[in-house]
C-alpha cells in the first residue's frame, strides 16, 4: 500500500509511540531519522518494501530499541532544567538583581528590627503565608498555560523539579511560626533567629521567582519549537 508523503511522518510517529516513545518532540526527531534511513535503504535496494526497510532500520537501534535514547534524553533534560533554574536563581545574587534581593531582605529585617521581640513572629508568619500563597498562585497560573499543551513533550516534562522543596521549606516556616505564636504569643523572637528567618523567606521568594521565570521561558520555547503540541 502506498503511503501519502504527508502521512509518512504521522505513521512513523505512531511506530515510535508503539515502541514506548510517548514524547512528541522525541517522536518527531526519531521519525525523521527513520524516514531518512528508510529512503537510503530503498535507494540502495529498490525491491525492499517500506515495512521491510523500517524493520531493518529499527533493528539498528539495538535490542532495547528506543529505550536507551528516551532514558538518555530524559536525564539530559532534567539536568538542563536544573541547571537553568540554578542560573536564574543565582542571578538574584549577582548584579544588578542583587540590589532587589538586598532591598527585600533589609525591608523584612527593618520591619522586625523596630518591633518588640514578642511581636516579631507576626510579620514572619504573615509574610510566609503571603509568599506561600503567591507560590501556589504563580504555579496555578503556569499550569493553566500548560493546559493548552495537548501532546506530551520531554522539553516541558522537567518543569516540576525543585517545586516540592520550596513548598516544604515555606510550610515549615509557616508551621514553626504558627505554633510558636499559638503556644505563647509573647514568646520573644531574638534578632539573630529573626534575621535567619528573613533570609529563608527571601531565598524562598527568589526560588519561586526563578521557577516562575523558568516555566515562562520553557512555555514560549516549547510553543515556538513544537506548535503542533499546542494545536
Amino acid at each position, binding site marked *: 500500500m502506498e503511503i501519502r*508523503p*504527508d502521512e*509518512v*511522518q504521522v505513521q512513523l510517529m505512531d511506530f515510535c509511540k508503539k515502541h514506548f516513545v510517548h514524547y512528541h518532540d522525541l517522536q*518527531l*526527531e526519531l*521519525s*525523521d*531519522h527513520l*524516514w*531518512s*534511513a528508510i529512503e*537510503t535503504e530503498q535507494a540502495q535496494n529498490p525491491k525492499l518494501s517500506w515495512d521491510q526497510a523500517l524493520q531493518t532500520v529499527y533493528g*539498528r*537501534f*539495538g535490542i*532495547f530499541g528506543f529505550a*536507551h*535514547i528516551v532514558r*538518555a*534524553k530524559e536525564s*539530559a*533534560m532534567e*539536568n*538542563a532544567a536544573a*541547571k537553568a533554574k540554578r542560573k536564574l536563581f543565582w542571578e538574584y545574587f549577582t548584579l544588578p538583581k542583587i540590589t532587589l534581593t538586598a532591598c527585600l531582605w533589609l525591608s523584612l529585617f527593618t520591619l522586625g528590627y523596630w518591633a518588640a521581640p514578642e511581636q516579631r513572629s507576626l510579620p514572619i508568619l504573615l509574610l510566609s503565608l503571603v509568599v506561600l500563597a503567591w507560590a501556589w498562585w504563580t504555579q496555578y497560573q503556569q499550569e493553566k498555560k500548560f493546559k493548552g499543551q495537548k501532546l506530551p513533550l520531554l522539553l516541558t516534562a522537567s518543569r516540576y523539579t525543585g517545586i516540592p522543596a520550596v513548598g516544604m521549606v515555606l510550610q515549615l516556616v509557616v508551621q514553626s511560626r504558627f505554633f510558636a505564636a499559638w503556644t505563647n504569643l509573647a514568646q520573644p523572637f531574638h534578632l539573630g533567629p529573626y534575621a535567619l528567618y528573613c533570609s529563608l523567606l527571601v531565598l524562598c521568594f527568589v526560588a519561586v521567582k526563578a521557577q516562575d521565570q523558568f516555566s515562562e521561558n520553557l512555555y514560549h520555547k516549547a510553543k515556538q*519549537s*513544537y506548535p*503542533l503540541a499546542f494545536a
Partner: protein
Amino acid sequence: MNKSSLYKGCLESIVLRLLKEQGRMYGYQITQEVKHLTAGELKITEGALYPLLHKLEEQGLLQTSTEKVENRIRKYYALTPAGKKESSKALVELKQFVQQLENIFKLQTAWK
C-alpha cells in the same frame, strides 16, 4: 583490531568538528557524514549518537531548531558560542593526543 573502537573515543570531537564545518546538521545527516568521512570505518549507531547529541545540548554546547523540510519536521543541531570554543579546544586536545601516540610508538620502534 577493530578500527571502529579507536574512533569511538573521538566521537564527541568528530561531531563538534562536523557541526563547526557544516553550520547545522540533523541526526541522520551526522551518521551519514561520519560514515562518508571515515570511508565506512566508523558507523555511528543511533543508540550512541542521540544520547551524545542530547548530552551536548544539555551542556549548552549545542542549540536546536525545528524546520519543515519535504513534508517532515526536522530537528537541526548547531553549535552555540560555547560549543564553538569547545570544538576548537577538542581539536587541540585531539592533536596533542595523536602527537603523544606518535611519540609512544616512535619510542617503541627505537627500542626494537
